[in-house]
C-alpha cells in the first residue's frame, strides 16, 4: 500500500458524539416528573421574524455533526470561544451555541443547576437538557460583535463593522438573556419530512454509507444554493484532488435552516443537487447530496471552520472552499476562508491553519477559485488556467433570470436542475423564499414527532 494513501479522519475530538435514546420506555423513565419547556424560535430583536430555531442545533449536536460539542455552552466556554475559538476541552470550535430563554420563562420554570428540563417540539417531547449552569448574557450586541469580529480586533479579514443587515449577527443580537447550559439528549427521535428524509445522513450513517460505496477519499461541497454549471465543474474538478487517485466520492452537504428572502427553497436546493446526478452530469455512484440542520451564521472564515468540523465528522477527507465562502455582504475579505486554511488568522486564535494547530482538524482544504464560461474555449474554464476573457457565472444573476421567467441556457444551468426549481415553484407559487415560505417553514420545520 502506498504511503501516500489518505485514510478517513477520526471525528473532531476523537469520537462521534451520539446522544440519541431510541428505547422509548427508557426515555419515558428519563423524563418522568421533569419540568417541560416548549422550544420557541429565536425572533429578530426588531422585527419579530424567526431567525433561528435551537432545535436544529440540538439535532446537529446530538447526531454528532458538531462533535465534540455535547450541549448548550457554559459561560466560560463561550468566553473562551470568543477569545481563542476553542472549547474548554481544547478542541477548536468557531461559535457559541447556547440554549437561551427569556427572564419570564426562567422565572416560570424555576429550574437551576442539577435539574433536568424536557424540551418539547411541535407539542411532543423531543429532548432533555441536563442543566449544569445558568448564566446571563449581559450585552447581546457585544456578544454578536465578538462572535464575528470587528475591523479593529480582526484587521486581517474583517472589512466592515457588522450590523443588522447581517443575518448571523442578528441571531446573536436576538438571543434571550438567560442561558441554560448543559448536555442535550434526544429522547424522541424525530422523523425527517420529505424530501429531506432521503438526504438525512448523520455522521455515523454517512460513514457507513461511504464504507458501502467503497469511498475512502471524499471531498465535500458546501451548498446553500441550487447548483449551476459552475458549481458542477467545481465539484468535478476539485474531486481530482485525492491521494494516488482522484477522490472516490463527492459529498454535497446542504445547510438547511432559516432562509433569507430571495434564497431558493431548501426543497429545491436538495432536489436540484440530486438532479445533477440523476441527469448523469456526475454519476450517482460518485455523488451523494445530504443535509445538515443549522441556521447559517454567514461567518465566512468562522463558518468554514464549522463546515470543516461537520464534514470531518461525516467522514470526508477533503473540503472545497471558494471565494466568499458562506458569506453575505462585504463584511469579510472575500478570500478570508482561504486565508484561514492556508495561513491562519492570528486574531481569531489561529496563528497557523486549523489543520496545523493543536486539537485542530484533519480534513484537507481544497481552496478553489472559479469556473466560468469561456467563449473562446467554448467550455466552462477554470479562472487560473484559462487565459481568455470569460463570462462569470453568478447565482444571483441566475435568480434574476429565473424570476423574469427566462429558462437559463443549459450551458449555465442544467435543464433537470431548472425542472427541480419549477417543481417547487409550482408547489409554493413562488420560485424563492418569501415571507410566507419563511413563516410556514418555521412552523412546520423539517421534522415530525410521534407521541413518546
Amino acid at each position, binding site marked *: 500500500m502506498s504511503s501516500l494513501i489518505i485514510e478517513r479522519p477520526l471525528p473532531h475530538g476523537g469520537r462521534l458524539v451520539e446522544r440519541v435514546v431510541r428505547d422509548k420506555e427508557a426515555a419515558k423513565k428519563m423524563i418522568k416528573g421533569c419540568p417541560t419547556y416548549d422550544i420557541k424560535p429565536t425572533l429578530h430583536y426588531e422585527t419579530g421574524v424567526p431567525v433561528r430555531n435551537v432545535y436544529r442545533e440540538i439535532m446537529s449536536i446530538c447526531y454528532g455533526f458538531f462533535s465534540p460539542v455535547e450541549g448548550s455552552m457554559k459561560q466560560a466556554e463561550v468566553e473562551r470561544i470568543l477569545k481563542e475559538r476553542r472549547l474548554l476541552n481544547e478542541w477548536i470550535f468557531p461559535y457559541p451555541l447556547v440554549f437561551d430563554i427569556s427572564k419570564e420563562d426562567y422565572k416560570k420554570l424555576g429550574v437551576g443547576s442539577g435539574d433536568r428540563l424536557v424540551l418539547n417540539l411541535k407539542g411532543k417531547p423531543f429532548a432533555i437538557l441536563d442543566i449544569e449552569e445558568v448564566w446571563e448574557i449581559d450585552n447581546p450586541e457585544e456578544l454578536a460583535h465578538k462572535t464575528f469580529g470587528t475591523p479593529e480586533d480582526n484587521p486581517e479579514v474583517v472589512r466592515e463593522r457588522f450590523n443588522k443587515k447581517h443575518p448571523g449577527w442578528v441571531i446573536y443580537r436576538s438571543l434571550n438573556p438567560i442561558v441554560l447550559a448543559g448536555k442535550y439528549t434526544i429522547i424522541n427521535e424525530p422523523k425527517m419530512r420529505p424530501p429531506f428524509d432521503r438526504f438525512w445522513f448523520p455522521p455515523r450513517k454517512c460513514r457507513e454509507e461511504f464504507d458501502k460505496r467503497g469511498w475512502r477519499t471524499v471531498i465535500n461541497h458546501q451548498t446553500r444554493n441550487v447548483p449551476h454549471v459552475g458549481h458542477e465543474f467545481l465539484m468535478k474538478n476539485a474531486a481530482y484532488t485525492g491521494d494516488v487517485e482522484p477522490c472516490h466520492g463527492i459529498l454535497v452537504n446542504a445547510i438547511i435552516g432559516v432562509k433569507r*428572502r*430571495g434564497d431558493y427553497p431548501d426543497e429545491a436546493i436538495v432536489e436540484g443537487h440530486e438532479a445533477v446526478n440523476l441527469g448523469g452530469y456526475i454519476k450517482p455512484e460518485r455523488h451523494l447530496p445530504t443535509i445538515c440542520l443549522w441556521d447559517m451564521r454567514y461567518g465566512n472564515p468562522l463558518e468554514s471552520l464549522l463546515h470543516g468540523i461537520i464534514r470531518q465528522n461525516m467522514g470526508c477527507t477533503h473540503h472545497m472552499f471558494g*471565494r*466568499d465562502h458562506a458569506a453575505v455582504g*462585504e463584511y469579510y475579505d472575500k478570500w478570508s476562508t482561504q486565508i484561514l486554511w492556508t495561513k491562519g488568522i492570528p486574531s481569531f486564535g489561529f496563528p497557523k491553519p486549523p489543520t496545523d494547530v493543536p486539537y485542530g482538524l484533519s480534513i484537507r482544504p481544497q481552496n478553489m477559485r*472559479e469556473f466560468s*464560461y469561456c*467563449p473562446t474555449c*467554448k467550455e466552462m474554464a477554470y479562472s487560473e488556467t484559462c487565459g481568455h476573457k470569460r*463570462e*462569470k457565472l*453568478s*447565482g*444571483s*444573476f441566475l*435568480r*434574476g*433570470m429565473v*424570476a*423574469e*421567467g*427566462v*429558462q437559463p*441556457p443549459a*450551458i*449555465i444551468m442544467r435543464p433537470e436542475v*431548472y*425542472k427541480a426549481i*419549477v417543481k417547487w*415553484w*409550482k408547489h409554493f*407559487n*413562488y*420560485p424563492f423564499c*418569501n*415571507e*410566507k415560505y419563511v413563516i410556514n417553514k418555521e412552523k412546520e420545520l423539517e421534522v415530525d414527532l410521534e407521541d413518546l
Partner: protein
Amino acid sequence: MAYFMVVLLDDNRFAKIKGTELEEKVQYMFGGELRCLNVEVSEEMKDKILQEFDTARIDSRGAITDVPVAFLRELFNQVAEKKSLGSEVIEAVLAKSSEIKELAAKESEYLPAPEI
C-alpha cells in the same frame, strides 16, 4: 469596483430596441445563448438601490441582482425609452421606487410558474 445591472433581452424586448443605437451595444453571452444589455450604476446609485430594496445584492461580477421583477421591467422600459445605458436610466427607475415597491409587494406573494 464598477457596478452594473443586466437587462436580459428576449425576442419581444429585442424588437423594441432593434434599429436604435442600443442594438450595437447588445452583448451575447454564454456562446450566444443569451442576449443582454449592461446598464452602468454609479456608487451613489448602487447605495440607493441597496437601501431601497432589501433583497438586492451585488454579485462577484459587480452586478446588482435580486431586485424585484418590477424593478427589472421598469429598467428595461427606461432603457428603451431613453435609448441609453447611462446613469440617468437608474435615476429614472429609482424615481419610481414607490410604484415598484407596490408592485413588488404583490410579486413577493405570487409569481406564475412557467409551464415546462
